[in-house]
């Protein structure tokens, strides 16, 4: 069996001197959708930023496709197939929709294929096509989320990190976005690591899940089992 696409080994990382996540270990196999759920401030976003090499491990390792990323600069990762949709979307507000998408393909030199991929993104999110020359900052929240996902897809990721795509969006739009995540996972065989506070939705979509509490992984199981776990239901599903 080949190495998991992503493996964290006892990873500690943080923003100041104290680690915000401690000894986090997790694996993501190729083709899976894995979710990390947890309360505000649990350290989910910190984990993703460490995977993207924006934060450096204080101890432990990030293995991407079997190789330690400690010596890989953050800006090299998209070209290796690791792309992130950061929390709060973080699109470039004063660039147009098309320019934002272009930025997602910044490292790519295959112009024709990039144009083709942009068409594909427009097929997934037709609203973006209508607004292709509009400034990113003038889009609605849902459209910005579509743009953020589309922008990451422009890098043709093998592993897509998604940080709270449901944040602040109406249920209908969230459903639409989650359906598309499932579709790209199935059609393009793209592995997804999804961070969510909306545990119900996330566990409905994912194959497996990790629960994060105050910087540590407290539990891991298949999504179905987690959904049925009474502790999880009480803590994260509001029962």
């Amino acid at each position, binding site marked *: 069996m080949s190495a998991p696409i992503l493996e964290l080994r006892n990873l500690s990382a943080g923003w100041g001197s104290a680690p915000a996540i401690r000894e986090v270990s997790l694996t993501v196999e190729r083709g899976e959708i894995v979710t990390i759920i947890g309360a505000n401030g649990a350290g989910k976003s910190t984990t993703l930023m460490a995977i*993207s090499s*924006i934060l450096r491990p204080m101890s432990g390792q990030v293995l991407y496709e079997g190789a330690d990323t400690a010596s890989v*600069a*953050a*800006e*090299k*990762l*998209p*070209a290796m197939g690791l*792309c*992130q949709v*950061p929390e709060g979307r*973080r*699109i*470039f*507000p*004063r*660039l*147009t929709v098309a*320019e934002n998408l*272009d*930025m*997602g393909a*910044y*490292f790519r030199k295959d112009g024709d294929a990039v144009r083709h991929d942009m068409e594909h993104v427009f097929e997934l999110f037709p609203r973006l096509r209508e607004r292709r020359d*509009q*400034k990113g*900052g*003038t*889009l609605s929240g849902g459209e*910005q989320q579509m743009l953020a996902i589309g*922008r990451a897809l422009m*890098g043709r990721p093998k592993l897509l990190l998604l940080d709270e795509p449901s944040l602040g969006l109406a249920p209908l739009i969230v459903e639409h976005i989650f359906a598309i995540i499932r579709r790209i996972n199935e059609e393009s065989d793209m592995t997804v690591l999804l961070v969510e506070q909306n545990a119900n939705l996330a566990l409905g979509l994912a194959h497996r899940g990790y629960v994060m509490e105050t910087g540590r992984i407290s539990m891991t199981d298949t999504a179905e089992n987690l959904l049925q776990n009474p502790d999880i239901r009480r803590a994260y599903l509001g029962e």
Partner: protein
Amino acid sequence: MTPASKAMLTKIVVGAVWLFAVVWPMTGITPQGFEFGKAISIVGFAMAAVLAGLGLWKLRQKLDAAGFKPFTALANRCCGMPPWLWRGLLLAALLAFPFVSSRYGQDVAINVLVYVTLGLGLNIVVGLAGLLDLGYIAFYGVGAYTYALLSIHYQLSFWLALPLCAVMAAAAGVVIGYPTLRMRGDYLAIVTLGFGEILRIILNNWMQLTGGPNGLLGIKPAAVYLPDPENGWEFVRVLLKSPEAQYFLVLAIALFTVVSVRRLADSRIGRAWEAIREDETAAAIMGVNTFALKLLAYSLGAVFGGLAGAFFSAKMRFVSPGSFTFIESAMVLAMVVLGGMGSVPGIVLGALALIALPEVFRDFENYRMLVFGAAMALMMLFRPAGLIPAKRVGRRSEEAHS
């Protein structure tokens, strides 16, 4: 009264009161007692200017609404013209300028073009890459002293020295940028301010090389070979000493800068700079090597500062540290901000406004900086994105919703 015009009225009243509070202590408190006339007249003039501007603006809106659109029609006609045509016309006007202008007008024009070059160079750093640089004039100084030293000690011609000045300025950009560009925002501004001052202090104290506060004398002007009609069209060496010649030289440098900066802004690199300006972390996540690109912005910006500096030193034939003070950095930055960050025509207009207008208002002399500061503040109230905002500067989502 609509809420919008009410808000505008409040702005104007607040602006007038504020301006008065700034101007009065300096003009009104005299050993002989208090005096209000001068401050009132300055505020009056400023407000009249603002009101006139607003009036024109309103008039235009009214005319627009009435379907009478001379400006739009003109703009359409201009845009309808093939770009080469209006560019050609503009170029012709620029080339004809020294022949129809007085000596004084030529001097002002030369000054404006130097600052256009500086403004566009700084625009790469501030407008495109979004790095606040308060020490930009250091690169102007590096260019000026590089040409001065090469000319005095090695008799190097201006044309050979020019690329060397650019290289030296770029190298200075890397040397200053490498340790500082890891910082963000306010910290970067403070540190660049410090480096700008360090350079000036070095120039002041490195007596053997720079002559200290006395500066360097004996710099050669630039020279070209032109056929001489009186000498059987033989090529003779002509020194570019006359204001006309200097005008054409700096015009060439400024045009080169305009073209380069436009190309850079439209390139992949320009897009990456904008992404860094908008959100550095997001840019890194997209695969942009943020540090290398910031360093590139810094050193390319420096290149144009260096070119302008070389011209300055060839024109003055004398350099001293006094020309490279913080106030110059502030001036160039003000042009960029006033004109509209990232917009080439805006910066040209900003340079015009800040160099040519004070010449027009010579009377203000002593209050120049005051009027200047007040103009900046009022500008920020009425046109926060600059006189001619860059095209791609749209409204941020937060603004759009408010």
